C-alpha cells in the first residue's frame, strides 16, 4: 500500500514536470515564430526563387515571362559548342580570383593580427589609445575605405606613389588599381588594412584568457620568448584562432563592395559575387546570373557545413 502510494506520487510528479516542460516547449516555438516567419520570407523564399530562376531563361526586363530550360544556364552543347556558366572562362577567372584573394588576404590578416595582438597584450603606456587607433580602420564603412584608398592609390595624384617616389622605391608612378599586375594586390592591401584590426581584437581576447602562471614558470626556467610563443601561446589560442580564420574566410568568399568600388567590373579582380551581379543587373540575364549565384551559394554552403562538422561547435549547450 505504501509502496503503491509512493509510486503513484512519483508518477504524478513526473506528469507535472512533463506538463511544465511541454508548456515551455510550446512557448519556445511561439517565441521563435516571428523570427522563423521573417527569415523564411526574406531569406528562405528568395534563395529558393534564385535557385529556381537559375533553371529558367528569366530576363530582367520582364520577370513574369520565364520558361524552364533545365540545366542550360549551367551547361549545354549547341552545334558542338559548349555554353553555360560551367564552361565560361570569365566565371572560372572569377572563381580563381576569389580563392586567391581569400587565401592571401586571410593569411596576411592572421599573421598581422597575431602580431598586433601580441603587441597590444604587452604592458606599455597609452595602451588604451593604441587600441582605439587600431579600431579605426574597422569602423570605416567598406565603400568609404575603398574610395579613400582609391584616392591614395591614384596613378597621377596619389599620395602613395608620391611617398614611394620620394623614398626611391619606385622610379615611376604605378597605376595601382588599373595595372593587371597590381590590381589584385591593391584590393588585398585595402582588405588587409581594414580587417586586420578585427582579427587582432579576436586574437587579443583569446590571449587575455590565458593563465599568467604558465608564463611566469617559463620565465623562471629561462625559456626563450620565441619558444614560449610557439610551444605555449599558439597551441592555447589555436581554437579561437581557427574560428576567427573560418569566419573571415567565409566572409572573404562573398566579397563584393570593396572590389566593385575600387576596380569596378575589371576582369583582373572580378570576384564571384561581382560576376553574378554583373550578369544579373548589367547584362539583365537573371537566369544565367542566378545560376552563377547558386554555384557561389553551393561553394559557401559546402564549406560552412564542413566547418561546422569539423569544429566541435557546441550549439545546444545548456544554460549554466
Amino acid at each position: 500500500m505504501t509502496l503503491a502510494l509512493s509510486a503513484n506520487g512519483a508518477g504524478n510528479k513526473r506528469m507535472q514536470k512533463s506538463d511544465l516542460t511541454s508548456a515551455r516547449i510550446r512557448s519556445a516555438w511561439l517565441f521563435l515564430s516571428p523570427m522563423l516567419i521573417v527569415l523564411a520570407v526574406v531569406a528562405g523564399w528568395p534563395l529558393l526563387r534564385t535557385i529556381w530562376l537559375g533553371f529558367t531563361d528569366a530576363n530582367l526586363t520582364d520577370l513574369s515571362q520565364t520558361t524552364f530550360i533545365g540545366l542550360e544556364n549551367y551547361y549545354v552543347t549547341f552545334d558542338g559548342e559548349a555554353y553555360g556558366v560551367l564552361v565560361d572562362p570569365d566565371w572560372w577567372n572569377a572563381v580563381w580570383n576569389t580563392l586567391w584573394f581569400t587565401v592571401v588576404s586571410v593569411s596576411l590578416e592572421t599573421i598581422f593580427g597575431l602580431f598586433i595582438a601580441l603587441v597590444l597584450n604587452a604592458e606599455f603606456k597609452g595602451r588604451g589609445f593604441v587600441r582605439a587607433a587600431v579600431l579605426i580602420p574597422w569602423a570605416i564603412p567598406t565603400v568609404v575605405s575603398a574610395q579613400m584608398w582609391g584616392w591614395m592609390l591614384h596613378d597621377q595624384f596619389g599620395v602613395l606613389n608620391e611617398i614611394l617616389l620620394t623614398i626611391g622605391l619606385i622610379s615611376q608612378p604605378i597605376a595601382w588599381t588599373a595595372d593587371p599586375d597590381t590590381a589584385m594586390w591593391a584590393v588585398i592591401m585595402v582588405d588587409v588594412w581594414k580587417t586586420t584590426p578585427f582579427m587582432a581584437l579576436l586574437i587579443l581576447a583569446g590571449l587575455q584568457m590565458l593563465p599568467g602562471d604558465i608564463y611566469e614558470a617559463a620565465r623562471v626556467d629561462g625559456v626563450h620568448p620565441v619558444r614560449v610563443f610557439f610551444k605555449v601561446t599558439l597551441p592555447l589560442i589555436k581554437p579561437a584562432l581557427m574560428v576567427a580564420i573560418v569566419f573571415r574566410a567565409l566572409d572573404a568568399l562573398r566579397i563584393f563592395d570593396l572590389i566593385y568600388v575600387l576596380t569596378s567590373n575589371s576582369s583582373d579582380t572580378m570576384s564571384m559575387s561581382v560576376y553574378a551581379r554583373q550578369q544579373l543587373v548589367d547584362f539583365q540575364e537573371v537566369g544565367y546570373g542566378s545560376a552563377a549565384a547558386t554555384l557561389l551559394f553551393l561553394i559557401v554552403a559546402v564549406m560552412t557545413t564542413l566547418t561546422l562538422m569539423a569544429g566541435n561547435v557546441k550549439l545546444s549547450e545548456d544554460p549554466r
Partner: protein
Amino acid sequence: MNQRTKRIIQQTVLYALIACVVILSVFPFYYAILSSFREGTALFSSSILPEIGTLGNYVSVFTEGPFGTNILNSVLVATAVVCLSLFIAVTASYALARISFRGRGLLLMTILSVSMFPQVAILSGMFELIRALGVYNSLLGLIIPNTVLTLPFTVWVLTTFMRELPKELEEAALVDGASSWVIVRRVFLPLMWPALVTTGLLAFIAAWNEFLFALTFTLSNEVRTVPVAIALMSGASEFELPWGNIMAASVIVTVPIVVLVLVFQRKIVAGLTAGAVKG
C-alpha cells in the same frame, strides 16, 4: 650588454612597433580629412602636412546632390532594421538559449548559416519579391532585405549572452508559476540592456555599411543610402572624379561611426567576441 641597456633597447623596439601600427591604422583617414579641406589644384599637391584649408567641398557635397537626403535615408533604414531585428531577436534568443527542445541545435546552425551565406545568392529572388510587393526604389524596399543581414547576427549574439546568465534566475520565477513571457519581460529584459545596446550598435553599423542591396534595389538618387551615394559620385566628365567632394562625404559619414566605436570600444569588442569566438 648589461640588463639596463638591454631593457632600453627592448622598450625602444616595442614603442617603434606601436608607432608603426598606429600610423598605418590612422594615416588613410587622416589623409582623407586633409584632402577634404583642399580644393582646386591644392587637391593634387599630395602633401601630407596640414595647412589652412577651405570648406568648399563640404558645401558642394550638399548642394550638388541630395546628400542630406542620403544621410537621412541611411539613418532611417538602419534604425528601422535594428529596432525590428532586436524586437524579434529577444524572444527568439530566449527560446534558443534557455529552453531545450528538439531541433534546437539544427535551428542554431541554420541561423549561423544564414548569416554566412553570400548576399548575392538571394539577389534575384529578393529583386522579384521587392517588385511583387511594389516597394522597388523605396526605403521599405531597403529595410526588408537588410533584415537578412542583421537578424541572424542579432539572434546569435543575444543567444550567446543569455546562455551565460545563471540558471537560478528563472528557476525562482518558474516555481512561482510565471509564464515564459513574464520571465522574458520581468527577469531577462532588465538584465539585457547592455547586450541590447552592443548588439544594436553592431547591427546598426552593418546596416549603415550595406552596399549590394542598396545599389541594386534603388534607381533614383533621392532613395539611395550613403554608401551608394559615395560610390556613385561623379563629376563633370567621366574621367574626372570629384575627389574633394568624395573625401568630404566620406569624412562626414565616418566621423559619427568612429566616435560611436571609440565610445563603446569595450562593449563592441565583447560583442564581436561573443558573435565569433564562441561560435
